[in-house]
């Protein structure tokens, strides 16, 4: 929230030589990049490029074949993600994520989704639930605090009115934003978003952009953003990593990446891939936000 104490030399996330093989298929091939805190790092690439695989390695769903995933937690120091169990990555290293196909707790309410995200803190406050069972004040206070945090995020995503709805009954766009809010309720230092704008209409997409820049600027955490929608990517990212067939083919500012011949080839080279033709415009003339780095 303040602009003091940056760590310009140690990046928040340092991925080194990450390789992930599924049998003969190399979904991530010697990928290395860095992501800084207070920056949105976009990860783009055609379908099947290995973006989700990268996230799954980062968040402990896959054990990488080789490579090093170093996260520098501002208070807890260096964490090697490839060695940590899935739930510990979220709990101890502070890496939260959303999913390409939304994974809310559909039959629980919006508020409950946000409270479950604060599980570990509440667990400690409730003495692993045993003291909470007896109605200890410490737990009651912790729960009130949890509700306050939830309310804060509900206000941000505009769902306060619908806090007691079943999450599964929300419109699609709201579900997407709720998933971001739920991830934020774990109080992460790195937030990984897997295509958060997929299926949103332009207005919802603009709302989402605002939410993401708000998180970056006000909560000073790092964001990793997988996205196909170039208006989102070009509009809000500070840094872009481009993957193709598991390999990193470009890495730089939006403007640099946009005009990178390798990127243009990756996106346009495959004639059959009609979906990506319109996903990325080939050339840029003027970019109002391009010059910010």
């Amino acid at each position, binding site marked *: 929230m303040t602009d003091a104490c940056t760590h310009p030399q140690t990046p928040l996330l340092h991925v080194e030589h990450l390789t992930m093989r599924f049998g003969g298929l190399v979904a991530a091939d010697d990928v290395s990049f860095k992501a800084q805190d207070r920056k949105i790092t976009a990860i783009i690439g055609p379908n099947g490029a290995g973006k989700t695989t990268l996230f799954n390695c980062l968040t402990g769903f896959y054990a990488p074949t080789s490579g090093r995933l170093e996260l520098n937690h501002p208070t807890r120091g260096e964490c090697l993600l490839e060695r940590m169990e899935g739930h510990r990555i979220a709990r101890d290293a502070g890496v939260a994520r959303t999913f390409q196909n939304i994974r809310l707790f559909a039959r629980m309410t919006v508020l409950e989704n946000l409270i*479950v995200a604060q599980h570990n803190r509440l667990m400690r406050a409730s003495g692993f639930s045993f003291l909470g069972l007896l109605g200890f004040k410490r737990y009651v206070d912790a729960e009130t605090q949890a509700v306050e945090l939830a309310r804060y995020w509900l206000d941000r995503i505009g769902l306060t009115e619908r806090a007691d709805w079943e999450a599964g009954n929300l419109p699609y766009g709201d579900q997407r934003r709720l998933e971001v809010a*739920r991830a934020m309720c774990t109080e992460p230092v790195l937030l990984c978003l897997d295509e958060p704008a997929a299926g949103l209409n332009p207005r919802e997409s603009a709302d989402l952009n605002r939410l993401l820049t708000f998180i970056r600027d006000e909560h000073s955490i790092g964001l990793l953003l997988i996205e196909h929608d170039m208006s989102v990517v070009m509009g809000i990212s500070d840094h872009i990593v481009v993957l193709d067939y598991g390999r990193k083919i470009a890495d730089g500012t939006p403007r640099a990446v946009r005009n990178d011949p390798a990127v243009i080839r990756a996106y346009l080279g495959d004639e059959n891939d009609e979906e990506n033709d319109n996903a990325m415009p080939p050339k840029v003339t003027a970019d109002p936000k391009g010059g910010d780095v």
Partner: protein
Amino acid sequence: MTPRPALDVPAILKEAGLTALVMLGLTVGLVGFRIPDGIGASALETRFGAVAMACGLAFAGRIALILLREKRPRRVLFASTAYAVVVALAQAAPVLFSPAATERWITLRPFDSAVVNGMTVVLAAAFALRAAWMEWRHRRFPGIKERDKAMDAMGARVQRATHFFGPALLLVAVILPFLPMVDRRLLDIAVLVVTYIMLGWGLNIVVGLAGLLDLGYVAFYAVGAYSFALLAINFDLGFWICLPLAGMLAATAGILLGFPVLRLRGDYLAIVTLGFGEIIRIILLNWYQFTGGPDGISGIPKPTFFGLEFKRSASDGGETFHQFFDLTYSPVDKIVFIYYVILGLALITNSFSLRIRKLPVGRAWEALREDEIACRSLGINATNTKLTAFAIGAMFGGIAGSFFATRQGFISPESFTFIESAVILAIVVLGGFGSQIGVVIAAILLIGLPEIFRELQDFRMLTFGGAMVLIMVWRPAGLLAHRTPSIRLSDRGGEP
């Protein structure tokens, strides 16, 4: 559903009335008068009752036909099924019921002749089948969503009604032993039903909240029962000390089982727990020196009221309940006491489950049931969370098992077969996963009714199976599945 034109009631009544008249004309001469055969019979015998009955049935039958023609099968279905079942039971009463009950059932026969009664039953059954077919055809495809919604709404209504209905039910449960019509038999049944309610609530934590399908719940029931029996007999410990110990031992068994198997999902978990239930039973059967094998364990001490026994005369050095309180001895006292013990235990189970739902573990259980992967991404340790659900469910199963042991005074592996697990699971499934009141209703239906109509024992498993299949086809979430949020923003000063 499109609104349908209203029925023309007067026209229907007229048509049915005409049919009844025709029936009257046909029957009054043939049935109404009978010349009694045999020597010395003089007067003409009249049977106007039978004639009236025939006309009434013709009237009703005609209405049923018209309703079927107008594609309104619902009421026809209910009425003709009810008629067929009641008359069939009345006809079969001498075979099914005790002589006293038969007396009452026989009055429900419409005609004296078994053949005529049988024919009306067949006709009613035909109507019912036709109506059921029509109902099925019309509702099956377009109606599923609507029906689910209606059932959800009903679940919600029941849930709301529970606010008033629950305390009333509790009151009835508390004063039950003193109600005038409650005799010893009924009280025994009540004890059994409450035991199953407690087991249902215990299993509901595992199946309903955490979503782990456990087909071997009886294993923990058995562990509790045997722990209790062995502790009480070998170490001479009292009821109130053995009870929590047995609960803890069962919880330990839950953790030991859970550790290796909770990585499995869905069907695999169900199969492994099924196996575990059988393994426990087979161990009990074969570990002769320790468990008494197939002979079981007898002479398990009865519960005491602060050390006071429920006996006619005290064992040496002790005092009995009726001596201490200066009452005359009554064997019912013991059952009343036992009833209150299990009621208390069940209520503890219930308030525990209600509370734990609002605690982090409980919410994590429900979240795990919804989406395990999302839980992991939020830093929830899925294995440990499932283990706690398993252990706590096992603990309540074990406590119920201890109660079972002390009530029976005798246990053997035969009491802990798979069918018990199936019955408990059926209670949870029928009642609606996660619904506390649903478990109560289902336990009364599945345990209480068959016990009251003991004469129909043989059909019990059949009915059970049928009911389960219907539920699975019709409403997989259970009859009263309705979830109330564990926390609401609107209750916390959040503007709605």
